[in-house]
């Protein structure tokens, strides 16, 4: 396996597309706070229409990366481009909508008043009713935001991000305050919005969320891109799927030579094969008639994540 800083080329990356075609482009971006480098030489390109997850531990540099992307922080070094121009220009043109992490509700205004203001500030907004509906706020338009529950307030922030009808939607750990059902509804809305041809970039530390809702996962670790690819790509790097079956006394020697198999483990009468290509392995097992109690476990993205990131934040020399 390659070192932790290697990148898997993303399949969605169009060869030869110029910088002007990218929705988001980071080139060698560094952001230091004193001696600490929160973002350290980050290079990243996101094409229009992609849904990308920025996956990393707390403190990996996700929020700083998004603040740089939105022009809230100037980079110490390197360049950030949105739609080929500086972030401020894209923001000023209403092409970016964002849901920030720290946002607490603005006191003394209703949901509708806030959204009316936000749509009014944008050149090509959606109407307030549509934003309310997309964010699942139908019955709450007349309520004061500071009197909503945490989950409802979160949906208000989502509505604010959507209301300008942006081409690029940026969501910083968007589902933190949502319960399971609300989370489902939230991602349905995001998906619907992405399907209109918009670009979505969200940060998360939930592996399953990244896997399920993003076309592409960018693993960030210590301010760098540690890996970049689809969930399947990342799994493959960690050794793919885990295939297990009952041996029933069959010989174990040929197993290591089966297609795709990387490692073999025998537990009592059960064989566990770590494979990079579970389809080929299962087909080969079927030919050998070794399919009793066959199980294919979707290999841990968690394994992949742990393999791709450093075990604990430590000083780099």
């Amino acid at each position: 396996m390659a070192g932790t800083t290697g990148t898997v080329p993303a399949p969605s990356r169009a060869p030869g597309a110029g910088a002007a075609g990218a929705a988001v482009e980071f080139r060698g971006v560094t952001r230091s706070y004193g001696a600490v480098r929160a973002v350290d030489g980050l290079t990243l390109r996101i094409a229009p229409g992609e849904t990308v997850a920025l996956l990393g531990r707390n403190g990996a540099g996700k929020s700083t990366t998004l603040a740089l992307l939105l022009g809230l922080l100037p980079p110490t070094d390197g360049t950030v481009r949105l739609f080929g121009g500086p972030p401020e220009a894209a923001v000023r043109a209403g092409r970016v909508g964002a849901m920030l992490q720290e946002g607490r509700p603005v006191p003394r205004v209703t949901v509708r008043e806030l959204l009316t203001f936000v749509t009014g500030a944008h050149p090509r907004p959606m109407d307030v009713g549509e934003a309310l509906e997309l964010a699942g706020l139908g019955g709450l338009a007349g309520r004061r935001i500071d009197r909503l529950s945490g989950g409802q307030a979160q949906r208000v922030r989502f509505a604010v991000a959507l209301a300008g009808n942006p081409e690029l939607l940026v969501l910083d750990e968007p589902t933190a305050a949502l319960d399971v059902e609300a989370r489902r509804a939230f991602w349905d809305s995001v998906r619907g919005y992405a399907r209109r041809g918009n670009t979505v970039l969200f940060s998360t530390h939930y592996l399953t969320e990244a896997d399920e809702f993003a076309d592409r996962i960018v693993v960030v670790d210590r301010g760098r891109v540690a890996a970049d690819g689809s969930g399947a790509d990342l799994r493959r790097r960690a050794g793919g799927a885990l295939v297990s079956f009952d041996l029933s006394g069959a010989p174990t020697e040929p197993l290591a030579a089966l297609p795709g198999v990387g490692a073999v483990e025998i537990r009592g009468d059960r064989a566990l094969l770590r494979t990079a290509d579970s389809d080929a392995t299962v087909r080969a097992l079927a030919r050998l008639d070794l399919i009793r109690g066959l199980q294919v476990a979707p290999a841990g993205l968690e394994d992949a994540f742990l393999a791709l990131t450093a075990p604990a934040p430590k000083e780099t020399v």
Partner: protein
Amino acid sequence: MFGYARLEILRALRDKSYVIFGLGMPVLMYLLFTRLGAGAGTEWKVSAMVGLAAYGALGAALGSGNGVAEDKGLGWLRQLRILPLSPRQVIAGRVLTSAVTVLPAIGAVLLAGAVVNGVALAAWQWAALVVLLWLGTAPFTLLGLGNGYRLSAQATGLANTGCMLLLSVVGGLWFPVGAFPGWLRALSSWTPANRFAELGLSVTRGGAPALTTVAVLAGWLALFGGYAAYAYRRAARTV
């Protein structure tokens, strides 16, 4: 800018502390200062009215910075930064908000002067007084906003209250400048609050404000405006 101002005006008018401190305090102080001591002269009733209307307006104007500091803590400033609004539009919206919330503070004291203390001025004088006191608050709004964008919520409250007290006292809004020692009187005439009250007092004397008065205020306006713009740009950076 107008959409933003509209939202902030709604927020300000729904704030109870605005109603108490912005409107109630100056009226109460005016009545105390003019009614307690027996036989307050007409001149004092007029100058105290202008001084305390100016003080109320000053408080409301500086107070708009407290709201800004609160917004920063909420992350609302960062949200504004990623909307298609320029810093100038945001600050202009805030100044406009302040202009609207300052007006009742001025009106309340003038009304108390006319109704309770029987201050009699010509109609044009009342109108000019309101307009000049109203326009004259702009530098203080910008100072308050600058503090709000630059400092934490707590520090802003202290800084704005400190600025208000210092400027009011040195500017002669509470006590007539005539009671000051000579050196302080000279200094006082260069301070923004003093010139601000002078805008109004010149009207009650039946004249137009002197050019130097307007020039001094314009200088403070430019200075505080620059401070507010600088502070706003820095504000959204801090997480």
